[in-house]
């Protein structure tokens, strides 16, 4: 790929050869073929279900629901990428989510309002509860990492134990009860009860487009400054245009989902006024999705542009080489699991806010969904390779399959049989792909 590009100096276009022909033009875009494959698979799933449901699958309403259902698993999947890249596994994420959720529910409904006497509805309550949950998640994750890195217990065992321990710690803390209703502000992180509306969503969309274009062209400028070959200017523009269209299209779809009239009428009644004739409003971008986008951006930065990320991938590729290069691989394990724990807490905010309560079975089997999302998204269990966006796409593919089948009316046992088979199939395709392309 790169070695075929010219290294001519100067400010003018450095163009890749083979700019003639469709294939050459396509090659000049330097797109990630694995990503294209996943997007293709996702589109096929969407189209098939859309046909099978007579057009109900690709409606703004269903796309909105699909997005908010994906967020919780997708958040944890970004952390699982780091865990699997360093050749570990975390089976305790669902249980850890439950413990964090239980802590946050207890803090906001019992400890802060009653024990500490802040009273219900105090504006600090949701934020203190989230902080408590994040600290618990971070601490438990770091503890898991210490057991694995410094005490040498395999991650499989530590987190298999954790699967039981933290699930039942959550039970013990709440006596197995459903805790709720949760704080109103807290519930805004759940999806449908907290969205940005039309204007807010467009603002976020435009900001995202500006950030994307800035990232692409800033990277190009930096490469030119260091005499590194870049793809042709038009190719850069095409990629930027595709990404901008994708972002704005997504916002347009979410903005097209109107809030049902009865919900609007109820909101106006609660505010003590009458709804004006012909009034409409849309949901727009859910806050939970905004959280996911933020987390994905930060995790991608960490993976690609920080030492921590570089060391995670180096350790996954060759642990001995990493150690000999002076990397403290034990401390690295602690950090990776601490990040995973923190993301379980963030995910617990979204999951419990969506349900409006902490329930005893929250996050059950999430560990399998999270690992499957990361693996379908191209993270190799042998370590050393994986991407954040792939894991999120993997989570989206799993969720689309699940809710698509539910909409078509596939029996519950068959749904899970299909999801399981798809996981195995995805890994098989990945192995074949790696063989063909000579790895990575």
């Amino acid at each position: 790929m790169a070695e075929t590009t010219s290294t001519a100096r100067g400010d003018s276009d450095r163009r890749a050869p083979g700019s003639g022909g469709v294939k050459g033009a396509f090659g000049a875009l330097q797109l990630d073929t694995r990503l294209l494959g996943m997007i293709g698979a996702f589109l096929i799933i969407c189209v098939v279900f859309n046909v099978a449901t007579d057009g109900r699958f690709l409606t703004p309403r269903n796309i909105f629901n699909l997005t908010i259902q994906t967020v919780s698993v997708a958040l944890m999947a970004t952390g699982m990428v780091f865990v699997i890249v360093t050749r570990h596994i975390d089976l305790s994420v669902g249980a850890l989510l439950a413990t964090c959720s239980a802590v946050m529910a207890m803090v906001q409904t019992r400890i802060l309002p009653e024990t500490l006497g802040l009273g219900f509805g105090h504006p600090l309550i949701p934020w203190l509860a989230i902080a408590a949950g994040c600290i618990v998640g971070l601490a438990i994750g770091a503890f898991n990492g210490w057991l694995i890195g410094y005490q040498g217990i395999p991650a499989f065992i530590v987190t298999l134990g954790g699967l039981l321990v933290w699930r039942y710690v959550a039970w013990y803390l709440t006596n197995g009860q459903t805790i709720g209703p949760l704080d109103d502000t807290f519930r805004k992180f759940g999806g449908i009860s907290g969205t940005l509306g039309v204007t807010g969503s467009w603002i976020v969309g435009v900001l995202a487009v500006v950030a994307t274009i800035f990232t692409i062209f800033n990277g190009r400028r930096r490469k030119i400054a260091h005499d590194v070959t870049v793809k042709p200017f038009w190719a850069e523009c095409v990629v930027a245009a595709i990404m901008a269209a994708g972002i704005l299209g997504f916002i347009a779809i979410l903005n097209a989902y109107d809030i049902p009239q009865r919900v609007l009428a109820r909101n106006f009644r609660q505010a003590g006024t009458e709804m004006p004739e012909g009034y409409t409003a849309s949901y727009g971008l859910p806050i939970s999705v905004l959280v996911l986008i933020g987390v994905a951006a930060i995790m991608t930065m960490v993976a690609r542009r920080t030492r921590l990320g570089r060391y995670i991938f180096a350790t996954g590729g060759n642990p001995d080489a990493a150690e000999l290069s002076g990397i403290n691989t034990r401390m690295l394990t602690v950090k990776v699991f601490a990040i995973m724990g923190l993301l379980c807490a963030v995910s617990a905010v979204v999951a419990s806010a969506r349900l409006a309560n902490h329930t005893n079975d929250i996050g059950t089997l999430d560990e399998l969904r999270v690992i499957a999302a990361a693996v379908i998204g191209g993270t190799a269990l042998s370590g050393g390779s994986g991407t954040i966006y792939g894991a999120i796409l993997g989570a989206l593919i799993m969720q689309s399959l699940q809710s698509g089948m539910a909409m078509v009316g596939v029996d519950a046992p068959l749904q899970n049989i299909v999801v399981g088979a798809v996981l195995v199939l995805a890994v098989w395709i990945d192995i074949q792909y790696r063989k063909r392309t000579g790895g990575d």
Partner: protein
Amino acid sequence: MRNGETPLVELKDMCISFGGVHAVDHVSIELYPGEVLGLLGHNGAGKSTLIKMLSGAYKPDSGEIRINGEKVEISNPRDSRRHNIETIYQTLALADNLNASSNLFLGREIVTPMGFLNDDAMEAETRKIMARLNPNFQRFAEPVKSLSGGQRQSVAIARAVYFNAKILIMDEPTAALGVHETQMVADLIQELKAQGLGIFLISHDTREMMELCDRVSVMKNGQLIGTERVEDVTEDDILSMIIMGRNPREEAA
């Protein structure tokens, strides 16, 4: 002692045992600037173990390491790097999934003022050093697993050269290489020597060692049999030291 000059490295009376086996048993060697010292011996003779105490992979049971005459404590690879010791391992110690510049700078990345990795600067530096060491090297963007053995070894050597190593440890640097690539490494060793580096070279190949080294030390069963200047001995003398564990010159004297 060489004209009263201070050795670059002195390993004095080094001992290490693994479960009652004396892997290295009271061995002392010295290395001078601009010198290549070869370490020879059968598998399990203790060459690699001895040198791993210098590179920080093992901690000696007893003994003393002096660098430029000063006693130093080396308990991990980071300590060793601090004393400008670079190691090129037999099992190419590169992260296969990363590209050449990521490997070259692994553990010592160039970062921007904001603390983020400056990959472009690292790639530009990598291009500069590779242009000097291995002008044919062009595949900067690909993970090193797609490179040939010689190209990978040149990345490992570039790492040592770039960071101004004073002491270079090469453990079977040519074991995985073809004829042409072996010659490339040999040329590189001559160049580094001319720059005043001290090089420990570990190999099985006696003939290669006679060509590349100034002096050779032979080990057997964890003990040092003897250290000789290559012009004073024949290949047969060396072989008999390796196999019989006797120093013919000492016996003649």
